[in-house]
Structure formats: C-alpha cells, structure tokens
C-alpha cells in the first residue's frame, strides 16, 4: 500500500500558542481516513500544513511523497479540497464560482458537474451573497467533486448540510473511493466517520492520541452489558461501574475480561442480556475524559 499522506512529529506555533505538538498522521492510498478531534484540536491547521497553505514549525510532512510547502502546486494538481468555513465572492453566482474553482484545477467534467448540481439540489444562478451556509458548502463540494482527483481533503464537510444532503455527500465519497481515490475527512460528527471511514486518527491538543481501524480502536474500550441476572459480577476482575436500573444490572467490561464474565453469567443464570459494542461516541469520550482528568 502506498502512503499518500505522511506526517510525523508535526508542530506549529502561532506566537505563544502551540496549535500542533508532535502530530502523527498516515493515510494510505485508496482509504477513507477519518481525522477526528474536538474543536481547536488542530485539525484545520494540520490540513493547511498538508496543503502548503501554512508552513510547519517542526516535524516532517509529505503528500504524494512531496514536501507540501515547496511543492504545493504539484500537490494541488492532484487534490480537491473543501475548507471548513466556505466563504464566497458575494457578487458572483454559485455556478460562476464552481467554474472558476474547477477551471483553476484544469476544468470540470461537464456531465459530473450537472449531475452533482442535480443531486445536491443546487441553484447555480443565485448570487453567492444570498446563499445560506449549507448552500455555500455545496458550492465548494460540487467544485471538489466535479473534477476527478487523487486525494480529496474535506474539513468538516457536512456542517450546514441537512441529512438528505449528507447522504448525497456520502454517496459521492463512495463513488470517488471506488475510482481509487484517497479521502482525508476531518470531522467531529462521529456517525459520518463511522459509516465512511476505513481508518481513523484521533487528535487532541495538537497531538495524535490514537490511530487505527475502528475495530482496532474498539479493543481499547469496554463493552456495556445490560443483564437481568442473579450473578454478582461486581467482584470479577475487569468489570467496572456496576449499577442497577430497575431489575437490570448494567456494567462495563474490559475486552480481555469478556470470557470470565460471560462464564459467570452463564453459571448464575441470565433471563435477559444485551451487549452493546462501544460506539465511536464512547470511544471519543473516553479519550477526552482520560486526557482531561
């Protein structure tokens, strides 16, 4: 597998503020890579460094094996980018802006452009100053998807989009992935990442805290059991936060303690049992909580 995006020990400071502090990120070809973190974690700064819009203060970064600062034009030839906060020229129409942005990248695929406009239910004739946030987002998304690229970079792409448009966006990501493109998707919307991404990197305060497939990361968290049982699980190793909800006992279990817990439950008898895998939400929260503590 080729590495498309590689960053190691990346740091960036703005005066006294350290936005990035030794951030690592590795995106392999053909994958959808989720880039997760709370507000202000440094997601946008990382993306801007990878695109050569900002210069890293330290560490190394490469996109397609090229240095992002000195070779940004070569990188941009193969990249489509949608920034987190899309701002447009108020006196130009949406259609004009789409054509400007795509023509700077070599021109839009005409059939793609019109099918995208249809899918996103977008009116290209309106002047940009009259667009809502969601519609401004659509301009940038249509411009990004209307010309094939090797790497798509999305910075919180669906903020402002309604659920229907979010699903249009997901379909487009799946389409370009099928064509062999690589996608880096920054987000704090977990469902988006859960549905789309092959691997995720979680960052916090400018540092990478976790990276891997969703399956990998789930090993790190506990599974929630809800059972109606006579067994006293609270003494078992690897069991935490035992609480009673009516007649149900609810508790969390470490992944490697699963076996003895299941055995204990089976021995004492169970009349009802649900076992919930950790959602990304929990994964996310557990990271923040441990870091905050």
């Amino acid at each position, binding site marked *: 597998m080729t590495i498309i995006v590689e960053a190691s020990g990346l740091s960036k400071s703005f005066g006294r503020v350290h936005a990035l502090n030794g951030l690592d990120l590795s995106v392999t070809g053909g994958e959808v890579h989720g880039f997760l973190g709370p507000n202000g974690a440094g997601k946008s700064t990382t993306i801007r460094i990878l695109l050569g*819009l*900002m210069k890293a203060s330290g560490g190394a970064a490469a996109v397609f094996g090229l240095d992002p600062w000195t070779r940004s034009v*070569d990188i*941009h030839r193969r990249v489509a*980018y949608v*920034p987190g906060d899309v701002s447009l020229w108020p006196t130009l129409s949406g259609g004009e802006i789409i054509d400007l942005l795509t023509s700077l990248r*070599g021109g839009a695929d005409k059939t793609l452009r019109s099918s995208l406009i249809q899918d996103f239910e977008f009116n290209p004739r309106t002047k940009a*100053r009259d667009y809502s946030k969601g519609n401004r987002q659509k301009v940038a998304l249509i411009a990004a998807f209307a010309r094939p690229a090797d790497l798509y970079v999305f910075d919180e792409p669906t903020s402002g989009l309604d659920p229907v448009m979010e699903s249009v966006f997901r379909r487009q990501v799946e389409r370009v992935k099928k064509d062999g493109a690589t996608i880096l998707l920054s987000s704090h919307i977990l469902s988006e990442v859960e549905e789309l991404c092959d691997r995720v990197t979680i960052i916090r305060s400018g540092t990478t805290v976790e990276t891997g497939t969703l399956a990998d990361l789930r090993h790190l968290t506990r599974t929630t059991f809800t059972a109606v049982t006579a067994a006293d699980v609270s003494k078992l190793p690897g069991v935490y936060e035992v609480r009673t909800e009516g007649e149900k006992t609810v508790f969390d279990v470490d992944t490697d303690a699963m076996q003895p817990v299941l055995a204990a439950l089976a021995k004492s008898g169970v009349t009802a049992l649900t076992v919930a895998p950790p959602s990304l939400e929990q994964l996310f929260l557990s990271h923040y909580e441990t870091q905050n503590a």
Partner: protein
Amino acid sequence: MLRLLRAQARRDRLQLIIWILGTSLFGVASGSAVIKEFGDAKGRESLLQLAAFNPALLAIRGTPDGSSTGAVIGFELFTYLAVLAALMSTFLVVRHSRADEEAGRWELLRSTPIGRASALTATVILGVLANLAIAVLLTLGFTATGLPFGGSLLIGLATGGAGIAFVGVAALAAQVAKTGRVANTIAGLGVALAWLLRALGDALGTPAKNGLHVTSAWPSWLSPIGWGQQAHPFGQPQPWILLLDLALFAVTASAAFAIVRQRDLGAGLVGDRQGRDHGRVGSSFGLAWRLQRGGVIAWAGGAAVLGLFAGGLAKPAIDAIKGNPSVAVAVEALAGKGGSLLETFVAAIMAFLGVLAAGAALQAVLRTRSEESDGHTELLLAGRGGPGRSLTDALGIAVISLLVVAAVGGLAAGAALAGAGHPELFWPAVGAAFVQLPAAAIFTAVAALVFAVLPRATVPLGWSLLALGFLLGQFGSLFKLPKAVRDISPFTHTPAAPGAHIDWAPLLVMTAIAVVVAVFATAVSRRRDLVS
C-alpha cells in the same frame, strides 16, 4: 493566472469602469472648462501669477508650469487626478488580496494548482491595467479637447504612473496588515502623505520672477504625486522622472511578493495580541464604539497632521511673499475681501479639514452597513438590535467623530499658528474647524438615508457623494459652473473661516437639514428588513 485575472476583472466590472471613466471624465471635463474659461493668455497669466505667490493655492492645486492651456490644466487638476488613480489602486488591490484572504476566499483559491503568489500577481496586473486605461483615456480625451498630443500623453502617464506606484504600495500594505480594513488604512495614509508632502513642497516652492513657474521645494520630490508634476507634461517635458513611479512600484511589489511566498495563509507581519478574557462592552453603542474607536483615532491623527500643516506652513509662506513687496500688495488686495493673507491660507486648508471630518463621520455609517452585510447585526438582533438601532448608534459615533476631528484639527492648527507668532489666530483657527462641521454632517445624514432606503448602495454611494461634493466645492467656482449646480454641494455653503465676518445663516440651515434627514433616516430604517 489569466483565469484569475478574468475573474477579478469580472467581479470589479462595474466598480472599475466607474473609477476609470469617472477619473478620466473628471479630468477631461474640467480640462474643457479651463479651456473655455481661460481662453486668452492674459487671463491664464494673471491666474498663475496670483497662484505663484499664494502658498494656499500652491498647496491645494500644484505648481504653475507656464501659461499654455495645457499647463494651466495640469496646475489645476493633476494632483487630484493622481489622488483618484492612487485611491483606485489602493482599494482595488486590497479588495482582491487581503480582504479576500481575510474573508477566507483565498483558502479556496490557493488549494488549486496556481502557486502561492498567483492571486496577488493577477491583482497587480489588474491594477496596472486599470491605471493604463486611465492613462490612455486621459491622453485621448485631452488630445480631443485640442491639447498637444505629447503633453496629453505625459499627463496621462503621470496620472497612471502615480496609480501604478500605489498598486505596489497597497500590495505591500496588504501583506503587512492582517485585515483589509487596516491594509486600506495604511495605503490610504500613504496616499494622503504623498499629497501632503507635495502640498508642503509646492507651498514652500520658489516662484520665478514672472510668476508663471514655481520650482517645488524638496518635499515634493518625496511624493509619487510630486513626481508627476516634476515631469512637466506641458512645460519642458522630463518623462524619465516617471521612472521613479515604476521604481517605487517595483520595490514595493517585490517586497509584497517576497512576503506572500514566505508567509502562512492568513498571517500578516503584524501579529494579533491576545484579547481580554472578559468583555467590557455591554451595549450596542458600546460595541459600535469598541469597533470604531481605532478608526476615529486614525482620522483624528490625520486632522492633527493637517492642522499642524496649515498652522506651521503659514508663516514661512507669508514670509516668502513679504520678500516680494509688489506681489504682496496684489495678493493682499485680493485676499482683503475676506481677511488677511494668513487667514485665507488657513481657511483654504480648513476646507480640507471639513472633508476629513465628513469622511470620518461617513465611515461610522458605512461600518454599520458592513456590519449588517457581514451578518453581525443579525447576531445582535436577539438583544433588540436591528438596522434602526444600529443606525442610531452609528450616528452617535458619527457625531463624536465630527467633534473629535474638528477639535483636534482646530487645536493643532491654532497651536501651530500661536507657535509661529500668531497667538491671536488660535481661537479663530479652532472656530474655523468647527465651522466646517454642518456641511460635513449633511454627508453623514444623507448616507444614513441611503442606508435606510437602499442598503446595498450605502458604501459606493456614500463615498461617491462625498467625492463629488468635495470636487464641486473645490472646482465649481473655478470652472464657473452654474450656481444651481455648485449649490448642490454642502461645502459650497460653508463660509470662509477664519475671516472678517462669518455668515451664520447657512450653518444653521445646514445643521437643521442634517438633523432632519438623520431623524427621518432612523425612522425609515426601523421599518426595513435586514439585507445581507
């Protein structure tokens, strides 16, 4: 790059055409007026002789350069043409560079394979082209009115040259500052400085014995506007001097490109300080003041410079005239209608202070409009904001701006005059500053009315009306425009002050008009929707 250039030109199509045609038309129309008015050589000579020994006229016009029709046109108009071209360049460059970047539009552009400096390159090319268009139109226009082609070409190039120099200056300002507003202020101050330096140099210039030529003092040589005059379009042409414009352009533009290639997106050379962790602003008026106090201080700084200029220059200029008794008698006789020579000089400069005050107050109303179009007013709407409320606040800031500019400018002029040995003129100078305010207030009130009725036209119409009023006030009587036309401009009605007797009636009438229009505008704006 060509595509970017086309896109920028398309965004600007209306605005640029108005700037280019407006500047050229102003030049050619005023030129024709001069030709009609001063058809005979006698009239032209007496005009120039009068000016050559009157530092006030030298400061607000330029230096006489012979008595040909073309030379008189150059004397009357050139500095204003150059200022218009320089301002066009400033706003054009900042609009497409720092303002775009600040709004986040460069982020979209710069993620395409165009190179870090391409957007700035396109902007600089557009700026140069716009100035060349002015140069060509002025050349053709002046030639068509019957002036020699060589001189027409040179005055056209001198105007475009000053504009091109400021394309570079503005490009550099846009790299240094982090916001479009600050970049515009820096480059705009550069234009004002260029004008003041040459006003200083010209006022201190040495007149030839026949009074048909004035050799500028050295400060004029520090100014791109001064360079255009020194090229002597209709005298003994020195076109090589215009290379100085190109040199300034080259130096500032290369510095701008060097910075833009090195810096992060969104960064300037001047960093941001940390803000307070708790707010002290608790009202919409407090917010308006917090947002605009920097601007008010900047305008007040300009007023201080202008006041010191008027007061400080008065004495050396008068001494120069006194050294030439025959002229002194003639000039004193002419000035005698309104007061002493010194008073006419101060009065002429005070008229500019009036425009400065009008600009400061106007900006308060225009800021309200940009707050609305940026969506900030909407934020406050929940706490009983809205266009009506924000307009009331803006008018409050406008009144403060008017008073501050007049007080600072008047006191500076008075202090400088007192320092130069004329303490008796201290209070008249301060009074003269305040006499300018009623006319200035009318522009604010009219802009408020535009804000209420045609919100989207507020900014372009606000500045255009002020520019028009200023030009009518400055040139209306000179070109013998019909009284009805001249009377449109409030500045026409401002009595000359300081002077022997000041006519209070127009001041009261203008103040009343300003108040009525402002109140009406506030009432109307309460009834209208927010307009993005």
